[in-house]
């Protein structure tokens, strides 16, 4: 009480009263280094002098932000869906118009502004199922097993929300690969689940090691109830494309240890290296015969944000749920209804992705041309990145077999490690911050993804246009040499 009797009022919501799990959430991809990058951009635009002319955000897998062009056909159909009066405009090809009509027919009042069913538009889910069947060489797919989502992240978080339960020693544990895409650690922290780290093998091009999975699992069983195993294939940040053998081993492991498999396959079209191929977990599962295909529970995730589309801003995605108990599925269906429905334009886009122009259709040739150009540019840039970075003393880069990133290992001199520690920073954050201030290049430090103790990395996207990427890589090289010199 103050002197005049007025109660001094503490807030209802303070750091001490908020949900404790919220405090634990970190998300490196958009963390402090990005905030600093945004600040620097602002300073540049205000005319402040810097040792660089522009900030290059090579931190986030955002293709269009880096100049990748959208697929014309997709944008034409979506424009027609947005403003159907354009159906009378002769500059739009016939196949785009018929696609738009087909999509609009599945929307309430023929408008993308109507709510859809919570699980997603029926006809889109059917098209997704057909796509999966084609992709997987005929392995059947039931449209009822398909849930459209608001990007893959939404699907992943929803599945985790569904399965996290228990308390204390029975609290759900979820195995995630280190290095990992930080959405997983953030979601697990928020849900109060136990994060179980299994290390990918950097010396073997970031492959998954069953003995390492076993080690992580056995240790975790001491203090939690491990129930799920998350895999990202092709990998993020590591870019590895798992071999078919490896996928079979993982499936056998999950079956033996009774783990729910979550396969994040959003980069399935981003495969570049010779000898590498995308194998969907579902296909491999079914080809392993009924012992596995009828028992292993699997969720696989895809999205419109990556591959050759790069349409992050539409928030399109789906998940396929395999072998889930019917009662649990009913709970999942109930859970997704709480947010009403995924964005309809994203659903429409997903429909186009799984159902692109066919040979003979007016838009086919230009579609193929655009898709090939984008994917081959990415392949070229993947190779270029690996090559250049490996010429730098103190940087070692595994082949970028797939996805959109390089995750090279960097040697940081002792002096720098010391200075970083004194400043309370992770050494690779210290390194990346310095790089940002001196070159304008924004990367994400490996500590944001997890890495073996004593090792340092950064994640850099391969998305900038080739000529810009060349300059970028040279600047990184230059910076690294300078940094190493400075702290020798």
């Amino acid at each position, binding site marked *: 009480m103050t002197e005049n009797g007025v109660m001094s009022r503490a807030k*209802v919501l303070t750091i001490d009263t908020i949900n404790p799990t919220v405090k634990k959430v970190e998300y490196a991809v958009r963390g402090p280094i990005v905030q600093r990058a945004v600040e620097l951009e602002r300073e540049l635009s205000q005319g402040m002098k810097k040792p660089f002319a522009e900030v290059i955000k090579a931190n986030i897998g955002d293709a269009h*932000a880096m100049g990748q062009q959208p697929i014309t056909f997709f944008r034409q159909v979506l424009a027609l869906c*947005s403003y159907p009066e354009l159906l009378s405009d002769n500059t739009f090809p016939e196949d785009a118009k018929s696609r738009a009509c087909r999509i609009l027919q599945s929307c309430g009042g023929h408008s993308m502004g109507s709510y859809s069913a919570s699980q997603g538009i029926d006809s889109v889910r059917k098209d997704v199922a057909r796509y999966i069947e084609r992709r997987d060489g005929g392995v059947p797919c039931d449209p009822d097993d398909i849930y459209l989502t608001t990007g893959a992240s939404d699907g992943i978080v929803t599945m985790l929300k569904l399965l*996290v339960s228990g308390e204390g020693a029975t609290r759900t544990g979820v195995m995630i690969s280190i290095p990992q895409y930080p959405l997983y650690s953030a979601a697990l922290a928020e849900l109060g689940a136990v994060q179980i780290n299994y290390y990918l093998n950097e010396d073997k091009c970031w492959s998954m090691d069953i003995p390492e999975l076993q080690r992580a699992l056995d240790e975790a069983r001491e203090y939690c109830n491990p129930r799920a195993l998350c895999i990202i294939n092709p990998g993020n940040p590591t870019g590895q494309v798992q071999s078919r053998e490896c996928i079979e081993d993982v499936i056998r492991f999950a079956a033996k240890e009774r783990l729910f498999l979550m396969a994040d396959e959003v980069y399935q079209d981003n495969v570049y290296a010779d000898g590498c191929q995308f194998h969907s977990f579902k296909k491999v599962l079914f080809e392993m015969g009924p012992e596995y295909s009828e028992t292993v529970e699997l969720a696989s995730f895809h999205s419109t944000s990556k591959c050759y589309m790069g349409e992050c*801003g539409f*928030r399109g995605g789906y998940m396929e749920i395999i072998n889930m108990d019917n009662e649990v599925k009913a709970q999942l269906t109930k859970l997704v*209804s*709480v947010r009403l429905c995924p*964005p309809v*334009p994203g659903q429409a886009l997903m429909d186009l992705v799984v159902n692109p122009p066919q040979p003979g259709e007016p838009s086919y040739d230009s579609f193929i041309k655009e898709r090939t150009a984008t994917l081959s540019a990415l392949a070229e840039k993947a190779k270029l990145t690996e090559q250049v970075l490996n010429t730098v003393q103190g940087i070692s880069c595994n082949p970028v077999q797939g996805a959109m990133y390089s995750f090279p290992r960097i040697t940081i001199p002792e002096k720098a490690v010391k200075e970083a520690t004194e400043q309370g920073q992770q050494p690779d954050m210290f390194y990346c911050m310095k790089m940002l201030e001196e070159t304008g290049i924004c990367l994400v430090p490996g500590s944001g993804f997890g890495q073996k103790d004593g090792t340092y990395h950064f994640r850099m996207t391969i998305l900038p246009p080739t000529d810009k990427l060349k300059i970028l890589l040279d600047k990184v090289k230059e910076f690294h040499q300078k940094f190493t010199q400075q702290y020798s």
Partner: protein
Amino acid sequence: MSVLQEISPNVKNIKQSEYEVLASRASQIEKELSQGVRKPYKELIDVCWCDPHSVGVKPLTFVRQVLAACVYPQLMKSHELPLDVRQRAQWLLGRCDGGSVGSYNAQPCIPEIIEKVSEFTTRRDGGVPSYPENIFISTGSQWAIMDILNVLVNSEASPKTGVLTPAPCHVTSMMSITALGAAAVPYYLTEEQGWTLQVEELQRALESAKGVCNPVALYVINPGNPAGLVQSRKSMQEVIRFASEKRLFLLADEVYQDFVYGENREFVSYKRVLAEMGPPYSDTVELVSFHSTSKGFMGECGMRGGYVELVNLDPAVQKHIFKLISKSSCTPVLAQMALDLMVNPPQPGDPSYPLYNQQTQHIKNMLAQNVKTTHEVLNSLPGVISQPVEGGAFVFPRVFLPPKAIQKAEEEGMQPDTFYCVRLLEETGVLCCPGSEFEQKEGTYHIRFCITASQDIVKEVLRHLTTFHTKFMKDFS
């Protein structure tokens, strides 16, 4: 046995929606209709939700032209689209990374659009300042409500975190509360007085929570859903004083703010009332208000866009909210743009203004007519009393079901008003929501349907309802 047999208890506890019963019956009927089975109707009329485009309301031309141009910028080259459309699309695309709606644009959203929202709320609230750093774009109000509740609710807490919620209250907010492991504490709106909110009832509700849960928040919906009330300033001041006194965090769901019909009614935002009350309230009461692009004249439910405005929050807490929302990166760019178009529509003098004005005026007239027609028709039916709808998207008439009907419902394992709605569906093809969905007072029965539909559809619904209701009451007398 399935690995996944054991799932989150919070998810299990979410009440199965009554609507699901209707939805599955409806899809069965649709299948039968497509197979040529003869019925007294050729198609279903779903007026369960406020989903204007699905029930005869057209999207606003300006909005769709701008969005189309943003999706396919080639359109800006021709002069088919009005100048202001092209200029707006150009401005919006200029704010996007790489000039594309396909980039994330999530830091956590386009800052200039936030500024526009801030300018909008300042204008709307008669000059009460609004700060961009207190505004976040959301992926629809339900998503935002869940995000904010997630910060408020400690799912491990014992006793549970409590949230005072209006009764009746719409379903998805209730589901979110359960999904997060919190407890809803209902405060009953007074139906006989037009669903007004009485402070004494807030007090009673709070008392009832003693020993059961720990209430930290008070959720209000204004204009209401399903109840069509629009709170008076006086009532809002009472709520604010109550929240202040009892140390409750105020959550104001204001998505229907454009739908106000009462003669002497106007929408005033909680933020404005709070500010006008001056200190100590204006400096201390913690408030989060929610708005959305799904409702109002745009009716763009499928876009999944909205915003949240925070007032008087602890800065450290706000930082965590920012971090949580950045992680989500879920609001589609088109939805962000729709938000800009909502808060910054064409003005007199703009080329698109005449058409825009004509279209919004048409919707206003349609709504006014629908409110009048539904009130007259519903109140003419024996055993039905419908409170005046002052605002919002729905009518929520009370149906006095005969004991025989209630018995039959019990035999069929259904809530009585669900039973009524299932019968209505089967006999007329009209889909309405049963009141049991909405935490109505025990022993009362209601139905809810939207008035945000074309006049023709509303008239058709009323026609079917009249015929059905008369027969139903006779059959079960």
